[in-house]
């Protein structure tokens, strides 16, 4: 039911997530922000079990901040991705975090990057990624229309197409989506796509 997807464009990376907090058949709220801003130039879209998601993302965010305080420089996106993978892998055989993550970041020297990290700690650097039932629609849509070095407008348009596809074809489609973007000017919320107000 939860959908998170992302893609890399020319000088930016985009992460889109649904904003529903669901318990069985009840929608608790439809403005739950699942894309955490890790630091100035990183976005982490997370989907999975609600408690694990909140705990794990906050844990990662605080540790990323701690690294910056201790060392005076921020982590690169690749380093943050590997840190997350390490934490997930360590917990995997004790008390696994059921959280799937799409990490988007912008580094001055390497540009935008997107990382796919699933709940069993498989890490891979990708151009487009998606999790959840929505991934069946989002990935196919992106396979068809994505090309490298898209502009922000083209990428937003593609994200909207994916959202439309999820809305029309998924039986328990989420009501609202949030789009966040990260580029050289930082990580920020771009816009929402709502069907209901909360």
């Amino acid at each position, binding site marked *: 039911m939860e959908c998170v997807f992302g893609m890399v464009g020319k000088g930016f990376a985009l992460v889109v997530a649904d904003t529903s907090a669901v318990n069985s058949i009840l929608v608790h709220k439809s403005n739950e922000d699942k894309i955490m801003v890790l630091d100035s130039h990183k976005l982490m879209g997370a989907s999975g079990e609600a408690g694990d998601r909140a705990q794990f993302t906050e844990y990662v965010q605080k540790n990323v901040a701690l690294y910056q305080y201790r060392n005076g420089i921020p982590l690169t996106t690749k380093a943050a991705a590997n840190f997350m*993978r390490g934490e997930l*892998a360590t917990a*995997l*055989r004790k008390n696994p975090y059921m959280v799937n993550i799409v990490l988007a970041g912008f580094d001055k020297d390497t540009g935008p990057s997107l990382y*796919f990290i*699933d709940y*069993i*700690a*498989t*890490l*891979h650097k*990708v151009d487009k*990624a998606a999790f959840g039932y929505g*991934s*069946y629609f989002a*990935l196919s849509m992106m396979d068809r229309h994505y090309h490298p070095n898209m502009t922000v407008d083209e990428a937003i348009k593609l994200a909207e197409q994916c959202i439309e596809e999820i809305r029309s074809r998924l039986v328990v489609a989420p009501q609202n989506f949030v789009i966040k973007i990260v580029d050289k000017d930082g990580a920020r919320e771009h816009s929402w796509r709502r069907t209901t107000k909360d």
Partner: protein
Amino acid sequence: MSIFEYNGSALVAMVGKNCFAIASDRRLGVQLQTIATDFQRIFKIHDKLFVGLSGLGSDAQTLYQRLVFRHKLYQLREERDMKPETFASLVSAMLYEKRFGPYFVQPVIAGLGEDDKPFICTMDSIGAKELAKDFVVAGTASESLYGACESMFKPDMDHEELFETISQALVSSIDRDCLSGWGGHVYIVTPTEVTERILKGRMD
């Protein structure tokens, strides 16, 4: 579905005349869904030693990081690179350490030993070594690979013929396996150089 078939993989290593070849597919999947078509399964430990890790992608990444750590420590202490036979014993020991909670990987180790003699071996997920003189296979396509390699292999091939043979064996096997594919990645290693090539097969 078995945990070994979660991500999908295909690995093969072959021995030639003073050279060896190691090849893998490039698909990273989550059961039926393909996530990426450029996943790296074969890793260089040093110029004359390569290890391929098939099975669960996460455990392959964890095990690779631990192996690099152990090899770097060995290099610092011994001031030389590890021999392939030694490395194989190391991998076997590390896997058996987790006997009752194993890494879900099947490694394929290939290297040039003393006097540049080619060495290949594979092992199961708890470290049972299987040395071979001709070829070793691993992954979801292993049964097809056994057949293809058995029929195509000849002893003492030079590196060009070896490349052709291993490529054909790999591509024909992964084309018949839905969980592996999206091309191939082949490394040909001779005492003087390492050649890396990407193959294009059925991209599905």
